[in-house]
């Protein structure tokens, strides 16, 4: 198993660049995608890490990507980034989900903290599900 990766999906180029830089500065491996479609095209569920996901995007939206990943059997933890422009219903659904949720503009320190928690959670659940792979980490 490769090192855990932070997958970043956001249609805003500046957000991608800024968040990527922040995560990389903290020593994390980051892969940024401009759309859910691009992300799905290269998605491999054996890769560990977490997904930092913008909610409102043209094309496949954040929640739709979440559904698709669930359908594919992925348990990759997701940290949703909302720009507060989402409808109340969407926000409500997100809050009720098992995933994390941060409002833009997200505090950098807080984001890093959540990302590290999510990665740890992912690694822990992969350990549980596939203990044989545990020593390969």
């Amino acid at each position, binding site marked *: 198993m490769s090192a855990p990766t932070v997958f970043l999906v*956001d*249609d*805003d*180029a*500046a*957000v991608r*660049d*800024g*968040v990527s*830089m*922040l995560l*990389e*500065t*903290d020593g994390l491996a980051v892969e940024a*995608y*401009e*759309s*859910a*479609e*691009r992300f799905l*095209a290269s998605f491999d569920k054996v890769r560990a890490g977490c997904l930092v996901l913008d909610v*409102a*995007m*043209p*094309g*496949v*939206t954040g*929640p739709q990507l979440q559904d698709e990943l669930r359908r594919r059997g992925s348990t990759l933890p997701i940290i949703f*980034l909302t*720009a*507060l*422009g*989402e*409808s109340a219903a*969407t926000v409500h659904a997100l809050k009720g989900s098992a995933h994390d949720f941060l*409002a*833009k*503009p*997200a*505090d*950098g*320190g807080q*984001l*890093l903290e959540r990302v590290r928690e999510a990665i740890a959670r992912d690694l822990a659940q992969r350990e549980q599900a596939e203990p044989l792979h545990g020593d390969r980490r």
Partner: protein
Amino acid sequence: MMVDDAALARFVDASPNAMLVAARDGGIVMCNAAAGALFGRTPAELSASKVEDLMAPADRAAHRASRASYGTAPAPRAMGAGRLVRGLRNDGSEFVAEIGLAPVAPDRVLATVVDVSQSTREGERLREREELLQLFVDHAPAALAMFDREMRYIAVSRRWLDDYRLGSRNIVGRSHYEVFPELPERLRAVHRRCLAGAVERQDEAPFERADGTTQWLRWEALPWHTAAGDIGGILIFSEDITDRKLAQLERERLHAAVEQSEERFRATFEQAAVGIAHIAVDGAWLRVNRRLAGMTGREPDDLLVHPPAEIIFAEDAEHEAVQRARMVAGEIDHYGLPLRFVRANGDLRWVMLTMSLLRHADGRPGYFIAVVEDIDERRRAEHATRELRAEMDRLLAVNVASQTAMAVAHELNQPLNAVSSYAEAALRLLRAGNPKPDRLEHALESAAAQAQRAGRVVRELLRFLKKGVVEASVLDLNAIVRDSLAIVEGGGFGGCRTHLDLAPELRPVWANRAQVEKVLANLVRNGVESMHEAGVQPQRITISVTTAPDGDMALVTVADAGPGMDAATAARAFEPFFTTKPAGIGMGLAISRALIEANGGRLWIDENAKPRGATFRFSLPFAALDV
């Protein structure tokens, strides 16, 4: 016949009739006893006389002349064919004598003399009676005619000729059926029955004349009898009652028409779906219908004792009175007013009153005609609708404010999020001893740029809120489309192919660059989302730039390959908060349209663009040439 005197004398003597034989000069040469008796003279006296001596003096001259002419061409003249003369007796009395003549020898004329005084008097009396009868018939104020058994006219009154428009034709002796070929069989049957003894009459009978007119007649027909008691023919009395009958028919027609119109009026009045009333000039009800009474919660009879002034709600009465006065003054010929009726139970009811004024022929006001419609429910519904609309407007205003705030938050939070990330990264780089100066520089530069971006969002918003104050400049629309698409593509439209169809020769437009970019981004985003929703592959968007057909504007078309919009969706597409997208808030198209219109252009859906997909078009004005 020529005889000798002896034979002639014997014949004359033997005749029981008075006979004389005269010579050419009028001298009497023979006579018999009967002649002597007739003239009251002896035979000797007679023989000494001339025939003129036996006549009344007045007839003598004429007789001499006729005797002279007779002498030149003597011929027998039978009794009854000759002229009557007045005979003169010896005592001076006269009698009417008829004379038969026979030339019996040269210069000898045998005259037979008969006293016809008696029969002449009867004849004259008969003639007189006939003349009187004719006079009576002629001048009878009735039309009457006398027919023989063959229905030939025996006598006819002038009035008959006049009534049947026969003019002055002499119809005596002609057949009734020849005079009136149009006479119907039923009347011919009447004639036959009367000839058989019946008496018939009819007080009113139409008679269709040959000229197409109809005469109305009152007639009576009866047989007349000869002295012997036989039926000699019939008499018909008739009276032309055409004028009277036509007048009666007209009266009946008018009466029926009046009755019908009264009936119609009554029905209209009573069964009208609206309230109707006649109101006297002094303001009293003259007539009200049930519907009107119902609007006041009363029976018609009850309403009549409560004049309009009591029924019309006091607050509305003054205005109504003003209008009524204007109408009486002739300023207006009718008026319509919504006003309230006070019902029997004190409730108010909204009605629409339409008043007109019926005037007499001389222009004086006659009475008012009020038509009243119950608009209470409508009025209440309108009121409820108004309240509901106000409530909705209020909710909508709140919603618009919150939606706008959210949209603004989204636009601001994107760059702020980037700034926050860059700043946090820079901070960490510094804390780590700035191992990568170029990274630090990039982080700080980017943070500054994103702060500027946030500032632009705010400025743009303020401009938009100021409405109509658009900072415009001369722009190359081709470049804007190209740049916008680059921005959009950088913004994550994975898998969507775009095709640009630019117009390099296009004149520059006059518009706000950021706003046009925003609209382009919105439209492209819309297209991508709809194609994605519908699972369309491959996703393709075509953007073309042209000059509008009328040449005044530049035209940009954004067409996708998605499912397009049905008419209902297209009709509502530009409404605020209308969306078919699960994640959308429905402001994109509404804002886009507002932005394009703020730039003097139009944004619309081209529903005719086929074969598939949604096609949006927007226009922008060209920059003036001297700019």
